[in-house]
């Protein structure tokens, strides 16, 4: 174990120690459903802004985008811009109505004036599918990261892949089971501060190398990296749609709006989150360009590939200690995101499916929290198993898929329920089901899965052509989900729901009667 990076181990155990103390403190205040799912609505807008940023800045967006910029150049930057534009959309269309109408999940909003059982069944399915896809991607990422980061002098992995997957699963369960939303929120806040701080220091180190003159840095960046790759325009537009509307359909993000006391704080938290995330993405692509110049793709390729661009740059500029710190932060990032996802999945299982559908809305506080805890364990075990099962699969498309499902199954159903008077139960269910089936189905039939996983061509034969030509289904699945919601609603008019829409408006716009 001579090559083990002790700084990294120290920082990592420091982080785990602090977060466990936090969990112990939060556990004492986590008895009721409102405390478990929504931290007792005690989080301020500023704190929630950081926590939202923490939930959103996954390892994929830190290591992934820095690596993509180092390897492919401008295309990585396009991703980071796309991930950000979802936030203003979320603010203008969703944040305040969601907070005013709901209690714990986005299904609360869709079910507000419609028939709760079918709506909650459909909406919870959309939420759980999104969460499981996203969880699997994070778990595989965690395992790979630990394998690459912790190596001995001979380059052999010190921890095995499954050690990391099981470790992340176990720690995440402790946070969520005992500390609920309060512990999960503070884990996100600490991690967001560490990640933004670490990335800032790294960028200052890069710029110091060039006497704080960005022009000197870009003079050395390979010209090819500064131009977008040639891709079919439809692919670009489709991915853009998924990223833009996916954010406002991600269950673990939407759930955060219930942790603040009212709509005003919800709105403030999006403003802060947008600022932090935007700043972070500007840092991330600077790190990517910096790595391409100061480390070089040859070295990056020989030491674990593009995902290691940021850690290798940290080693180059700050030595083993800074490399260790940044590695520990990257791992803490995955841990925090996994905890947030598990809590969102557990709330859909317990609040929507168990209480809303099976118990028809009648359950004691104790029962609700107990079922949510059982749901957390179930999701934790499932995530570990999926993480191990998918070890050798290319999971890059999983994050794109999670965004496509969120944008197609969750977002249209949610938006229509807030703005459209003639929306009906059948329409909402149709919209969710069409969005979900098309998003998943077209990805399976598309170039990332069909030709590479299902209908793999024999070695010498030309590659199998995908049945659906685009990498991202959003350009078909989002309009189809809206269309299904509208057409089915028009065929199944519901005067009771229309009358309730007028009531609902008082709550949507003025917060009258909001929880």
């Amino acid at each position, binding site marked *: 174990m001579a090559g083990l990076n002790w700084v990294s181990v120290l920082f990592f155990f420091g982080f785990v120690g602090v977060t466990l103390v936090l969990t112990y403190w939060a556990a004492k205040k986590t008895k009721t459903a409102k405390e478990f799912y929504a931290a007792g609505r005690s989080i301020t807008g500023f704190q929630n802004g950081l926590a939202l940023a923490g939930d959103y800045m996954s390892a994929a967006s830190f290591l992934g985008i820095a690596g993509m910029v180092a390897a492919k150049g401008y295309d990585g930057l396009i991703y980071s811009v796309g991930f950000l534009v979802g936030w203003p959309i979320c603010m203008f*269309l969703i944040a305040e109505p969601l907070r005013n109408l709901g209690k714990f999940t986005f299904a609360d909003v869709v079910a507000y004036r419609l028939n709760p059982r079918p709506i909650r069944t459909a909406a919870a399915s959309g939420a759980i599918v999104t969460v499981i896809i996203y969880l699997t991607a994070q778990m595989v990422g965690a395992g790979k990261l630990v394998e690459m980061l912790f190596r001995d002098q001979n380059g052999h992995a010190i921890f095995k892949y499954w050690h990391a997957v099981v470790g992340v699963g176990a720690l995440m369960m402790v946070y969520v089971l005992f500390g609920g939303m309060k512990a999960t929120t503070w884990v996100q806040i600490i991690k967001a501060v560490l990640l933004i701080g670490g990335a800032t220091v790294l960028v200052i180190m890069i710029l110091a190398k060039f006497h704080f003159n960005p*022009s000197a840095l870009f003079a050395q960046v390979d*010209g090819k990296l500064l131009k977008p790759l040639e891709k079919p*325009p439809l692919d670009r537009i489709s991915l853009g749609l998924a990223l833009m509307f996916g954010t406002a359909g991600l269950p673990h993000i939407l759930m955060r709006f219930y942790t603040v006391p009212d709509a*005003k704080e919800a709105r403030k938290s999006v403003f802060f989150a947008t600022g932090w995330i935007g700043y972070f993405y500007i840092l991330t692509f600077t790190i990517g360009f910096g790595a391409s110049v100061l480390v070089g793709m040859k070295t990056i390729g020989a030491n674990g590939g593009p995902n290691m661009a940021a850690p290798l740059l940290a080693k180059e500029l700050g030595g083993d200690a800074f490399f260790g710190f940044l590695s520990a932060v990257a791992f803490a990032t995955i841990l925090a995101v996994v905890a947030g996802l598990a809590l969102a999945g557990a709330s859909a299982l317990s609040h929507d499916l168990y209480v809303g559908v099976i118990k028809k809305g009648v359950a004691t506080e104790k029962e609700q929290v107990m079922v949510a805890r059982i749901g957390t364990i179930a999701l934790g075990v499932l995530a570990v198993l999926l993480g191990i099962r998918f070890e050798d699969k290319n999971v890059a498309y999983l994050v794109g898929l999670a965004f496509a499902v969120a944008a197609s199954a969750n977002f249209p159903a949610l938006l229509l329920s807030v703005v459209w008077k003639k929306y009906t139960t059948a329409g909402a269910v149709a919209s969710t089901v069409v969005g979900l089936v098309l998003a998943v189905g077209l990805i399976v039939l598309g170039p990332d899965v069909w030709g590479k996983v299902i209908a793999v061509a024999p070695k010498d034969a030309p590659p199998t052509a995908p049945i659906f030509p685009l990498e991202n289904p959003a350009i078909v699945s989002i309009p189809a989900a809206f269309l299904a919601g509208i057409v089915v609603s028009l065929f199944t008019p519901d005067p009771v729901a229309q009358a309730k829409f007028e009531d*609902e408006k*008082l709550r949507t*716009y003025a917060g009258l009667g909001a*929880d």
Partner: protein
Amino acid sequence: MSEPHRGNLQLLDDPDFKDLVARKNSISIKLTIATLIIYYGFIFLIAFKRDVFASKAAGNVTFGVFLGIGVIIACFLLTGIYVRWANRNYDAMVVRLQEKAGHGGP
């Protein structure tokens, strides 16, 4: 889940409430359209005018880098515009309505 108070339904016809709904919808739609135009302007430029991105804008920093940072900053400013509008106008209108409804406001 507490139902909205039936006694407040007359507020639906209150000119203040109608004004609030109209103004909130108007600014939400305008800012959403602004976001869409900025982002899709960027995406269409990438899809159809790739060469623009590599041209130098200031020293060796390329136009594409400024464009990317510009879209990010524009998104942040748009959310800022909305928060400013809401803090100055929306909140006061909501408090007035809540007083009319006998809630006394938050």
